[in-house]
């Protein structure tokens, strides 16, 4: 079966000359969940921005058989839902409800259809009670879930989450995990949160200096790159405790 996402030899250089992606190859199948690990600045976020054409690099990116290029960005963005790292940047409308309606309305749905899609998406993330609230009154966990709803309302085939657990407390993380587990979409999760990645994904890829240097089972990657804090340190309690 044709993979949902196929990336071949992707290169990208920022205007200031930084080479952010240096030949990335990647595939994602329907229903699969993959964690993206790697040090800060290794190109993870730059990579996911290519998946719905926010950045266009050299190489080949196809999503659901469509090439990601200028003339079909609309279709690509309908397939790939991107949840940003900073929820404040994603929630810009005056109320939660209007914010979640933003995507479906842009897709050309009629107001009643968009409203129905938004209500359904907010129910899915457990925020159905917060329709009329203003985004700046929400907690970090609630903001994250509303941002996710804003993307779900567009009914994407693939969810891409950039550091979804940043700023979340343990109950917030757990709530997000429950929501994500219940969603049928293929998922790509950029994260430093090993616990979270393990709970959601079997497969992981490891980024280093703009390349994917390893692709395999989550635990194998964690061990190989000493990426798991509690396993890579002998110290589990402060000295003298």
């Amino acid at each position, binding site marked *: 079966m044709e993979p949902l996402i196929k990336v071949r030899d992707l290169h990208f250089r920022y205007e200031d000359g930084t080479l952010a992606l240096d030949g990335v190859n990647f595939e994602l199948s329907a229903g699969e969940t993959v964690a993206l690990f790697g040090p800060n600045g290794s190109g993870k976020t730059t990579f996911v921005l290519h998946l719905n054409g926010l950045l266009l690099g050299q190489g080949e990116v196809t999503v659901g058989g469509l090439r990601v290029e200028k003339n079909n960005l609309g279709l690509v963005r309908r397939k790939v839902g991107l949840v940003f790292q900073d929820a404040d940047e994603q929630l810009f409308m*005056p109320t939660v409800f209007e914010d979640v309606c933003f995507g479906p309305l842009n897709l050309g749905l009629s107001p009643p259809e968009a409203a129905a899609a938004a209500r359904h998406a907010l129910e899915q993330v457990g925020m159905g009670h917060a329709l009329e609230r203003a985004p700046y009154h929400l907690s970090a966990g609630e903001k994250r879930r509303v941002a996710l709803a804003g993307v779900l309302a567009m009914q994407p085939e693939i969810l891409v989450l950039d550091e979804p657990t940043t700023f979340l407390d343990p109950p917030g993380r757990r709530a997000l995990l429950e929501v994500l587990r219940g969603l049928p979409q293929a998922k790509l999760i950029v994260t430093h949160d090993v616990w979270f990645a393990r709970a959601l994904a079997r497969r992981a890829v490891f980024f280093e200096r703009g390349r994917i240097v390893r692709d395999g089972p989550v635990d194998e990657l964690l061990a190989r790159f000493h990426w798991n804090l509690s396993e890579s340190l002998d110290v589990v309690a402060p000295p003298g405790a």
Partner: protein
Amino acid sequence: MHHVELDRWSRGRSLLHARDARVKILLLVAYLAAVATSPRVSVAWLAVYGFPLLAAVLVADLPVGAVLLRAAVVLPFSAAFAVASVVAGDSQRAAALALKSYLSAAAVLVLMGTTPLGRLLRGLERLRVPGFLILVVQFLHRYLFVLSEQAQHMRLAALCRGGWSFRQAAGGVAVLFARSYDRAEGIHQAMLARGFAGRAASPEPARAGWKDWLFLLAGLALVAALRFFLGGVWSR
């Protein structure tokens, strides 16, 4: 935060809150025009023009004291001109400047305090205000809060390390500007990612019912009465 407070007021439930935003906007414009063009002001004028506003505040169940206090934010701006008029020997004009700007601000507050921003902007949109302008207002309102929070954090961080002088504050403004720029980029990307193509549509098309039209007619009649009869007669 001013706009958080206003936001809370605007989510109340009263006859005034329930009215269509367009009707309220039109009425506000008519009222402002009447205030701005009335020839002379006096204590009686203030009472006559202030009465409908006070009634609106009471009907909408807004805190009277807070509205009166907040409306005073315009005074420092008009005060400069008022003082200039006094110096020039025209105390009537000075009083007019101060009173008119104060009443206008109070009227705008009543509109803002009875209409959630989303609906207000949709109302403006349907009254053919350019969409770009509406987006700018919407973003300003949304990110004022984020920006002021960021400024607070920077100030605290500076205080923790021993100071917050005028010079540092000036540097802080520069950093804040740079960060706002970055944030604007981020927001733009987030908008594009959700299919933004230049216009944020509204999920709930506003429909004005007969009650709204009745309210508009009654309001316009009242404003006309103020301008051409009551206010004019009593301020002579």
